[in-house]
């Protein structure tokens, strides 16, 4: 690791320690009442303790399953749709109004509506996750196609490759890093939707359910915060894995080339 890299990691650790220390101090000094904000060490201890709680782990499993299913569904819908919209201008023009209307709708606002239609179960959760996750993947696919090299396309055409072959070998391959970045953004969005849907629907199993139920218990703040720590850790791990995957798969992406030469 470079000197600068080491320094950045050092600063990162320092920041975490400071934030942790501040939360701990505020609570222990009695500035905020303990039931409102338990000391950070207690929250962390509880979060670790939950790792041995099989009911809690089942909940995490349910959330992760819904998250993975919704995200996969979003990929299956958004990538082909993005290819279509990105490569056939007529279709793009026809769909633009619909897309521009649907995109800014906050997905969380759709939770009651979808719950009404599909009930408050996994189907609702997966549907909402998929809906929210479609957008970043869709737009990144379209954007990635637009960035593809006209000269590479011409070269392949001159070698006698047909339109489908050029779309597959140049455009889709070139758009892959953009699509992957879209999936990474969607992975975070999907986690938000998973937890939010569970919080609002309030029964069944899942991380959101755990948090919602802890909220009702007396002195539940510690459990609520421990659940939040788990949600954060989950997001962090997912993001880390995806960033690592992108680096391994696309070392040729323009922003990474300089590093590896």
């Amino acid at each position: 690791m470079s000197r600068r890299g080491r320094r950045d990691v050092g600063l990162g650790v320092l920041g975490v320690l400071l934030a942790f220390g501040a939360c701990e101090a505020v609570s222990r000094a009695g500035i905020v009442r303990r039931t409102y904000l338990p000391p950070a060490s207690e929250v962390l201890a509880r979060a670790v303790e939950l790792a041995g709680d099989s009911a809690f782990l089942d909940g995490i499993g349910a959330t992760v399953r819904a998250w993975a299913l919704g995200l996969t569904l979003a990929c299956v819908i958004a990538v082909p749709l993005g290819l279509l919209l990105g490569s056939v201008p007529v279709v793009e023009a026809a769909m633009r109004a619909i897309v521009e209307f649907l995109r800014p709708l906050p997905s969380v606002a759709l939770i009651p509506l979808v719950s009404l239609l599909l009930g408050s179960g996994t189907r609702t959760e997966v549907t909402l996750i998929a809906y929210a996750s479609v957008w970043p993947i869709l737009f990144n696919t379209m954007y990635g196609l637009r960035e593809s090299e006209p000269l590479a396309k011409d070269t392949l055409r001159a070698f006698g490759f047909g339109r489908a072959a050029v779309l597959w070998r140049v455009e889709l391959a070139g758009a892959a890093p953009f699509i992957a970045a879209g999936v990474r953004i969607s992975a975070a969005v999907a986690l938000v939707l998973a937890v939010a849907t569970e919080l609002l629907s309030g029964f069944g199993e899942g991380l959101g359910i755990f948090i919602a139920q802890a909220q009702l218990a007396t002195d539940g703040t510690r459990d609520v915060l421990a659940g939040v720590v788990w949600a954060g850790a989950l997001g962090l791990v997912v993001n880390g894995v995806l960033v690592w995957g992108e680096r391994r798969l696309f070392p040729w992406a323009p922003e990474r080339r300089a590093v590896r030469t």
Partner: protein
Amino acid sequence: MLRLDSLSQSYGEHRVLRDVSLSVPDGQLLCVVGPSGCGKSTLLRTIAGLLPVREGAVTIDGTLVTGVPDRLAVVFQDYGRSLLPWLSVRDNVALPLRRQGLRRAERRAEAEHMLERVGLEASARRSPWQLSGGMQQRVAIARALVVRPSLLLMDEPFGSLDARTREDLEDLLLEVHRTDGATIVFVTHDIDESVYLGDRVVVLSAGPDSRVARDLPVGLPAQRDQIATRGLPEFVALRAEVGRAVRAPARAAVLGPADAEPEQAR
């Protein structure tokens, strides 16, 4: 035999080429020169079947060209954009062979053989973007040659390389032309290069509405040498003639260089 008959091309209202007629015998290395914006690239793309013909006709061995001709290869100036960065050097070169239904192992063997010819066998497994500009253009040339093209089109392929690398690649091209005997249409804005490489030099007049201003056979010996050939009196005379034609104003150029001079003086 490649023939252009009264070929005209335009982008909307903007006419780029007017009434260009040329026949290129098999195995000829034809250099097309002209000031920038004279439609050299348009001409090349039209022959490649990448642009539809607006007026006139392009025929190869008497057959009208309506799409991309068979056994064609193209090398563009911008190697960085025409090579696929996600494929290794070897796989870039092997890619066009997919069209010929060869199996993977055969494609790779052919590609490696071709890389050897351009002196890049040691870089076969690297990524194109890890190589220097000159090496990348060698990869593009190997990729073009691997299909054993009967027609090779080159659009200012050495335009962005340094002088030394360019000379090496010019000699590589001459050697390849001697051994493979493909018909080559080589577009350049470099007058020296056109005379050094060509069996024949065609000068296009300044655009818009470019036409063939001069069509000159190059009488230099087939075996060329960067130092000796460029010093020959024929080379110097021909270079001057091409240079005058390229610099001439659009209208006068059609009449010939002798008529062009007084007009420039005005």
